[in-house]
């Protein structure tokens, strides 16, 4: 992806913010960030990782049962796939800590796959039909392209030609077991072990190997919020939509084979909004409202989320189905516009008011 220059305009606005601060609330303090971090971990992160771990276990069980009976794409297995994909979409943007360890995020979902590597690697795995390749440890350390959701999706909805059904079933079972293990491992690393990541976040206030202070951990969450929207806009909408209705490339959409590209986006937006709003004890929104001029910024961000959500609610789960509607491309283009507006609010006033420079993110690069 391109990274155009973003000239700093902070000099000016910092002066403005300081001027106002004298008149009203004090800027966000270290304690505020520490409280925010605690709320995000307890109310937002852990419940979502629990849901993912449960979905992983359920998927593993469904695949074992149905493939044990000799059938791959049964209704319960497909439902379990969707449940896992839903749960993943709610944590997809959290690319740090336990999610980064062992390339877990990439193992769960290798995407976008601009060079068709999933098809190539899965095709080879199926053609060679070597049971040793499915031995759990070897499978988990092999190519990420065959061990996660996109490969399972292909097995269900677009199996490689000439695939031996029994071996394809074995591959699906290997993927299910692998996903269960990864999702379980992520949750465990947040909660348990010698250095649970929840504790790392909590001790950020005193400074540790990962964070200089509480604010730096809050910055990590702010970046994740932005990353969710950047990924949605740039990868999930821009690439398939192109610049005109004639230039669409629907096969660049995420999860198009299981017809859930827009369902993914709906979950991404809901989950970004929840991170912003906070669940239970208040998130970024509450902190923002306590800053000088923060009320207006908060109202703008809420309105932008609401607009994007209502636009999405009127669309089907499948991007292709949306495109098949008479004004489909235009409606998706409008959604993309909404999200860009939201991103501008985050990168600009949100970031400046809370003094959280959003920096580089892991979707950068081209």
């Amino acid at each position: 992806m391109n990274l155009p220059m973003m000239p700093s305009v902070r000099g000016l606005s910092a002066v403005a913010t300081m001027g106002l601060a004298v008149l009203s609330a004090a800027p966000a303090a270290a304690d505020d960030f520490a409280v925010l971090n605690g709320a995000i971990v307890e109310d937002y992160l852990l419940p979502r990782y629990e849901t993912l771990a449960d979905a992983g276990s359920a998927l593993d069980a469904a695949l074992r049962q149905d493939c044990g009976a000799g059938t791959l794409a049964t209704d319960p297995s497909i439902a379990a796939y969707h449940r896992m994909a839903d749960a993943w979409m709610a944590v997809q943007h959290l690319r740090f800590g336990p999610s980064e360890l062992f390339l877990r995020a990439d193992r769960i979902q290798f995407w976008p796959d601009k060079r068709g590597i999933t098809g190539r690697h899965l095709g080879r795995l199926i053609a060679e039909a070597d049971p040793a390749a499915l031995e759990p440890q070897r499978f988990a350390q092999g190519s990420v392209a065959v061990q996660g959701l996109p490969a399972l999706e292909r097995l269900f909805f677009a199996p490689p030609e000439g695939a031996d059904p029994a071996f394809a079933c074995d591959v699906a079972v290997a993927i299910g077991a692998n996903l269960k293990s990864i999702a379980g491992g992520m949750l465990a690393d947040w909660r348990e072990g010698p250095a649970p990541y929840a504790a790392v976040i909590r001790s950020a206030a005193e400074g540790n190997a990962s964070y200089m202070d509480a604010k730096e951990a809050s910055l990590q969450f702010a970046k994740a919020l932005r990353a969710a929207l950047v990924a949605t806009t740039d990868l999930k909408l821009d690439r398939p939509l192109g610049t005109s209705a004639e230039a669409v490339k629907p096969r660049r959409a995420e999860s198009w084979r299981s017809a859930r590209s827009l369902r993914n986006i709906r979950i991404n937006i809901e989950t970004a909004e929840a991170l912003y709003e906070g669940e239970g004890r208040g998130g970024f929104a509450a902190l923002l409202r306590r800053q000088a001029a923060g009320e207006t910024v908060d109202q703008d961000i809420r309105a932008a989320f609401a607009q994007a959500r209502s636009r999405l609610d009127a669309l089907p789960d499948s991007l292709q189905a949306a495109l098949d509607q008479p004004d489909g491309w235009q409606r998706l283009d409008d959604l993309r516009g909404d999200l860009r507006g939201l991103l501008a609010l985050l990168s600009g006033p949100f970031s400046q008011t809370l003094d959280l420079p959003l920096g580089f993110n892991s979707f950068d690069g081209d």
Partner: protein
Amino acid sequence: MRLSGTLAAAGLALMPAVALADGHGKMAVLETYADIAHAGYEDSLITARALQQAVDALVADPTEASLAAARESWIAARVPYQQTEVFRFGNAVVDDWEGKVNAWPLDEGLIDYVDGGLYGAESDENPIFTANVIANKSLKVNGEAVDASVITKTLIADVLHEAEEVEANVATGYHAIEFLLWGQDLNGSGPGAGNRPASDFSTADCTNGNCDRRAAYLKVATDLLIDDLEEMVALWDQNGPARKGLLTGNPEAGITTMLTGMGSLSYGELAGERIKLGLMLHDPEEEHDCFSDNTHYSHFYNQVGITNVYLGTYKRIDGSVVSGPSLSDLVAGKDSAVDTEMKEKLGAARTAMQAMVDRAKTVEAYDQMIGEGNAEGNAVIETVVQSLTTQTRSIERAVAALGLGQIAFEGSDSLDNPQAVFQ
């Protein structure tokens, strides 16, 4: 008491002058930066001209010796060029241009014959995945018939390059030339690079067909690289718009550009796209210089380039040194601990890169290091990724120390026009 009172008064009185000096300091740092950019692109041009001579010699008399000489020239040309990549991110004028010169990865079946078993026969993304222009004098591109009977700069740069809006349709630049000089690497994760025979360019004793067209393609692509590099040198010379844009603009924006380049190359591009991706796929096709097996040096010199920008010093190919006031000076002036940490992390990344280079020279090639089941090789590459990620954190801390706030976002319309957003 009196002393401190005097100092305080003096401090207040001096404030505008100090602010001015700070602005001057930034300008001087930007001048060093522009000087290094200019020297780096000039060195890239000089070495590309040497490559052009070697290519001419190869085409005139294709022997294993003339092919080997051309390959050596290509590898030498990469040394200065890879050090300039740090100028790409942040400088829109470079980023817009870069795709012509160093686009990667490529669907090389667009250009020439490929091994179908290794390359694949079709692509979800690319309708002209196997167009093979060297073998085909007429093609269908973007839905229209194209006359490719003569291979020209226009054909490869304007028609084929990024055709069908697919980035992998790379028809120009270093990697297209690399493919023509080496051919596909058919060794998988085993030892060895691409092994194209010199006779692929021989009109007398042609192998794999269309040798005249293959030679013409190589020549045209190399000539085009010279044109493109000449353009970039001019952009950075004394009156060049790239330099002027930096030196007449807001100095803070200029410093932001420098750090954007360092951080984006370090993290998203190098650690992410170029290194981690190949490692997690264990796929020898996913290395930056996959035909020549020169990836270790490409990465290493990227890191040297990042360090150059921070320390404000560049060692040219003739051994002379360009240097001046640096980003390091600026950061140290604000927070010496951050500067020290930054230098340490730059050094650590370089050490990790050096270990990768040493292993490539003595034990196994880069594509073997990323191979499945190669725990030791994987670990060497993983260390490089970690060191780049850690280095990026320090770059962000340098940004914070300099009070620069917002920095570095990838493209989207609202972000391309930040002024519009803040008005």
